[in-house]
């Protein structure tokens, strides 16, 4: 194994080279971009939209919006992080459209307090077992909940929890402060909980 910095540097160089060719409209560069990322993005889309035809449509839509936005991609994050986020947004938008489930305002999804105490007793989420069926059910519940979060809040969950970036990198990617990433992340996790409780709550 080469040390991570060397790998990163080489990766960065390869990526800025690819980006330059994409911006120059080089057909081979576009083919390379799609061939490199489509598999991972298709797997991601499949987990969110569940039907193969929809998943393929989502990946195509995501690439087309990425092509259009290439001039605005500023290399703050990697192409891979950027494409991942575009795909999640495309998939969730489709899911939302199909299920006619609009985004909910964040304030309506936060826990309520009375005199500083929880206004309602929080219901424990069901304990995970290792069954495949359960795993899929939980993933579905998660993506349904994600679809209802406002985009700003979805983005921080996407970058920090799903893609595993730290707050600083997520802040750079979104062009907001580190403190705002943390504030949104905290509210987003609470809102997710509110949305997950009716599906995964133990008292169902």
């Amino acid at each position: 194994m080469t040390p991570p910095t060397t790998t990163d540097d080489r990766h960065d160089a390869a990526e800025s080279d690819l980006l330059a060719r994409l911006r120059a409209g080089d057909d081979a560069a576009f083919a390379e971009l799609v061939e490199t990322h489509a598999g991972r993005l298709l797997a991601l889309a499949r987990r969110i939209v569940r039907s193969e035809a929809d998943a393929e449509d989502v990946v195509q839509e995501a690439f087309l919006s990425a092509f259009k936005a290439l001039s605005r991609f500023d290399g703050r994050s990697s192409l891979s992080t950027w494409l991942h986020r575009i795909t999640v947004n495309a998939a969730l938008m489709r899911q939302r459209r199909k299920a006619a489930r609009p985004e909910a305002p964040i304030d309506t999804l936060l826990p309520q307090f009375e005199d500083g105490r929880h206004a309602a007793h929080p219901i424990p989420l069901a304990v995970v077992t290792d069954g495949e069926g359960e795993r899929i059910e939980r993933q579905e519940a998660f993506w349904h909940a994600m679809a209802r979060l406002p985009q700003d809040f979805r983005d921080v969950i996407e970058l920090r929890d799903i893609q595993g970036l730290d707050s600083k990198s997520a802040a750079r990617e979104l062009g907001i402060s580190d403190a705002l990433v943390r504030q949104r992340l905290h509210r987003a996790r609470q809102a997710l909980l509110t949305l997950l409780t009716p599906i995964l709550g133990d008292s169902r």
Partner: protein
Amino acid sequence: MTDPNDSPCQHAPGAVTCEECTGFLLDYVDGTLPAEQRERFEAHLGACPDCEVYLANYREATRLARASGRSDRDVGPPPVPRALVDAILAARKRQG
């Protein structure tokens, strides 16, 4: 890291409300909550089943999100249908 609104309150030492407790969650799970606040948080947690459940749920929501990202990081990318790649590249040409 600490929100200025969360400055240590002046009333009874250790008396943290559920609402304040909830405000500490992110720093607490990240391990960045200052020791003094952590102690008050944990004291409340030990005495408040609601907040105990809420903390467990908060962790679970985070775990779920992480799990949904892991599947594509760990298991390499699946093969892509050639037809999809071609369709995307052809659509780009039409997009102009």
